[in-house]
């Protein structure tokens, strides 16, 4: 789960304070583990260094919470690349995939494409596993089946999410 991409995605909606970013992030993705302020500022300064965000003015007063950040063109491209690249199929991807879907919806991009790309990646891996299983011995079959069942669970989640995208879109943009 990449906090940097998530913050970039949130910034696509418009310039924000660091404190705002933390709050939006926690609301959407941080139910279990809210971000520390430190994490937010260190990530922002990395993005600043890489030219993906810029400072968009400072309000009167002192302290980092007075700075507003805005996303750069390079930042937008980076988000786009991140969204369109499926994650490597492996167990416990839900957090990342969920963030991607929400950010795609927030930024008006196609969440369906995100899901379909991920499905294709999953299926490709499953095909390889199936091939190995069919050609292999019993041990191979059992090992492959274990992975296949987990990937299948992911895929089922992907389908379910795809079926509920409309509902989700209403909820995140509210």
């Amino acid at each position, binding site marked *: 789960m990449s906090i940097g991409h998530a913050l970039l995605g949130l910034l696509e909606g418009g310039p924000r304070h660091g404190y705002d970013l933390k709050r939006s992030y926690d609301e959407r993705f941080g139910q279990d583990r809210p971000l520390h302020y430190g994490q937010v500022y260190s990530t922002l300064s990395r993005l600043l260094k890489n030219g993906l965000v810029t400072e968009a003015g400072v309000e009167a007063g002192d302290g980092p919470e007075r700075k507003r950040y805005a996303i750069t063109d390079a930042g937008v491209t980076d988000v786009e690349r991140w969204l369109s690249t499926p994650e490597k199929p492996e167990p416990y991807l839900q957090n990342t995939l969920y963030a991607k879907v929400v950010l795609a919806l927030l930024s008006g991009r196609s969440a369906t494409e995100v899901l379909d790309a991920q*499905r294709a990646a999953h*299926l490709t891996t499953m*095909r390889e596993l199936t091939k190995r299983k*069919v050609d292999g011995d019993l041990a191979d079959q059992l090992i492959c089946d274990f992975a296949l069942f987990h990937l299948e669970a992911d*895929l089922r989640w992907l389908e379910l999410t795809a079926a509920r995208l409309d509902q989700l879109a209403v909820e995140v943009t509210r």
Partner: protein
Amino acid sequence: MSLLKAEGLFKSFGKTHALDGADISIRAGEVVAVMGPSGSGKSTLLHCIAGILPPDKGTVHYSGQDLTAMNDSKRSELRRTEFGFVFQFGQLVPELTCLENVALPLRLSGMKRKDAERASRDWLARLEVDGVADQRPGETSGGQGQRVAVARALVTRPKVIFADEPTGALDSLNGERVMHLLTTAARETGAAVVLVTHEPRVAAYSDREVVVRDGRSRDVEFAR
């Protein structure tokens, strides 16, 4: 070069739009999984491209012929000679023995009973169900019945096999066995397989997938 290509298919049942501009392309010998949530129009898409159901709009081309321009009996003949079908259940004629079920399409194409039954026995053996040849479908297990159905789909050496949830009524082990036998046999005979399924592990037996959602399909190959 695609063997079967459908463009801009529309089909409604009353007020329900089952297909809403679906495209698909199948190349010879490939196994394509048609996936999507239930009610998305997967089965309708299969029925349309297999010439079972005429679409309201759009074209279906099979090796140069336009299926939508054919009459019912011509399409019937095409289905009998060029296509094979496997469904979820209830496809075997309950009164006929398994062997007679497999021999039926050959006999309909005019083959002599003896020859048809000899060829059918080979196919039953290939699908490892020659033991139930003389039993009625009602007396076999679900897995055996589906294998008999696969044998019947393959016995005419079709160019395309349409399989609609072929493992839908089977447990994992039997389902995988049927899928393995089906895809292996199809690859050996060079038949393409259009596999409608909502099970990822079944779809994993395919070469690629086409996703159907709300009556529209997403076929990467089609765009190319």
